[in-house]
């Protein structure tokens, strides 16, 4: 009842008369995240130039060595240089992370936006489908699908895409429902703008930040999925240098040569940290009204 009234007057003067927009570079999380991920991307791009060795080059006489002058981070069980593999792994994992997130991001966001904006039956149907997929834990479906489709990069993309669009759908739908109630969206609609235009120009940009924030952590999730698939013997086809398969290869040495699993793990962690910082920062930046 008076919820309407409450909203009416509480905003009066909520903000100082002219709020200075904080420029993006003053956002500490965002900057830190960008630096971290930027370094990672740079390392990945420059891998052919800076890595000390060919990541596929085997040298069995030098297998399983600890860090040393010639191999800064040691060698794996085929005598390959771990540092080089880490650097090249960044290429594969960042690529997979971004690609695997892209399709579900787009598909999920679009469906979520449609469900949230139009509501009614469209919403009910889409959301029931989402609920169905949501009932299956990510790992379960991905593992089962990869088994069904056979291991390999393409199956992994496909399995992840099939499963993880639901999260984006849910997030974007929720945000769109909130945004739809915003007066500027109503104003746009009453201004006679077409639904698609309202969605794309007025709703979309204001709701996508949550999805992007989620995508950042989703990339990590996807890398984890790959790592776990590797553990179950379903990962990326060898001998490709890739963090997940490096971790799963090193799995048998966890109790002895522990750093072999830790190093790629650290790479994943750092990337994850960078991405979540970016996510946090973007969240702050893109929704100025949502103060932390």
């Amino acid at each position, binding site marked *: 009842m008076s919820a309407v009234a409450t909203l009416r007057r509480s905003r009066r003067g909520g903000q100082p008369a002219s709020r200075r927009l904080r420029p993006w570079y003053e956002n500490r999380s965002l900057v830190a995240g960008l630096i971290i991920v930027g370094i990672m991307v740079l390392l990945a791009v420059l891998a052919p130039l800076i890595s000390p060795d060919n990541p596929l080059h085997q040298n069995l006489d030098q297998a399983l060595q600890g860090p040393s002058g010639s191999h800064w981070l040691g060698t794996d069980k085929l005598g390959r240089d771990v540092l080089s593999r880490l650097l090249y792994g960044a290429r594969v994992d960042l690529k997979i992370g971004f690609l695997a997130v892209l399709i579900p991001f787009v598909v999920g966001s679009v469906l979520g936006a449609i469900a949230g904006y139009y509501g009614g039956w469209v919403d009910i149907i889409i959301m029931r489908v989402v609920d169905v997929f*949501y009932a*299956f*834990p*990510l790992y379960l479906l991905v593992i089962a699908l990869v088994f069904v489709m056979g291991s390999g990069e393409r199956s992994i993309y496909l399995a992840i895409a099939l499963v993880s669009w639901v999260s984006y759908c849910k997030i974007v739908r929720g945000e769109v429902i909130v945004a739809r109630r915003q007066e500027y969206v109503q104003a746009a609609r009453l201004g006679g703008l077409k639904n698609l235009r309202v969605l794309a120009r007025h709703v979309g940009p204001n709701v996508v930040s949550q999805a992007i924030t989620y995508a950042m952590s989703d990339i990590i999730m996807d890398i984890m999925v790959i790592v776990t698939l590797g*553990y179950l013997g379903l990962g990326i086809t060898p001998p490709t240098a890739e963090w997940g398969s490096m971790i799963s290869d090193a*799995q048998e040495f966890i109790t002895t040569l522990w750093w072999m699993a830790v190093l790629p793990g650290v790479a994943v*962690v750092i990337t994850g940290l960078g991405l*979540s910082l970016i996510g946090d920062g973007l969240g702050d930046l893109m929704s100025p009204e949502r103060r932390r």
Partner: protein
Amino acid sequence: MRIVQAVPVAFGVTVVVFLLVHLIPGNPAESILGAQATPARVAALSKQMGLDESLPQQYLHFLDNIAHGNLGQSYTYQTSVLSLVLQRVPVTLLLVLYSVVLMLIISVPLSAWAASRPGGARDHAVRVVPLVGLGMPQFWVGVMLLLVFAVGFKWFPVGGYGQTFSQHLWYLFLPALTLAISVSPVIIRSLRSSMLNVLESDYVATARSKGAGGWSLFSGHVLRNAVIPAVSIVGVNVGYLVGGTLVIEQVFAIPGLGSLLIGSIQARDFPSVQAVALFVAVFVVAVGVLTDIVYTLLDPRVDLTRRGDV
């Protein structure tokens, strides 16, 4: 309302479970029989599996069988899948519940601690450190915990499940902890922000203006209100926890649904795979419904009949 929604979802789940096996390229009977495949056996099994029928017919059969509690025979163990799954369900259930409890024990104090000084050093620590946990594969965390607490300190057994209930609790501690560690970052983050919301809310100010402070404020006004959003977050993450058991049960040699699933997948024991997927999905849906009910009990504002259009 949620219960009504759960019905179509349950049907959808059966469709997905059904398609999971029937989308496999080639004749499932052949891949099931593997080494022992002779044309005669393949034909016999195809008939037994009803593969000669049309897909919708097969699905109806499948539904009919489920309705009669008949989930088929396990090819590896040669026993009824239902009994196999039912044997495992309590194990996984206990593991999941256990990890939820541990997760709460970890995240509630940490998030309260962080929320008490937002923007401070401890807040940053609590927000960032768990991220590290997010980047560690669960199996890796599990083995490390084993190494330290089971082999090193000998406080816990190295995997297994035990015989009695108290043994179960002892055996499952480390795996449950591993799972708890893996979801805690998410939970801590959202708990922290819901606690912050509560702490900054007007009614906490009101409580302060009545002279409440410290523990009486926290227990009387903050906790319950902060827990309400947390309940749905926990509910959503139960699916993730169940997914985590797949790997964790492997690492800790726990005879739950997860290890049954992985084993069955590797052995192409499709009836078992279907049954586990079905049970897990139904479980997750049930948890969703349960979460809603708990939510309603905790939050007097929610009327079960009127959710969804809020």
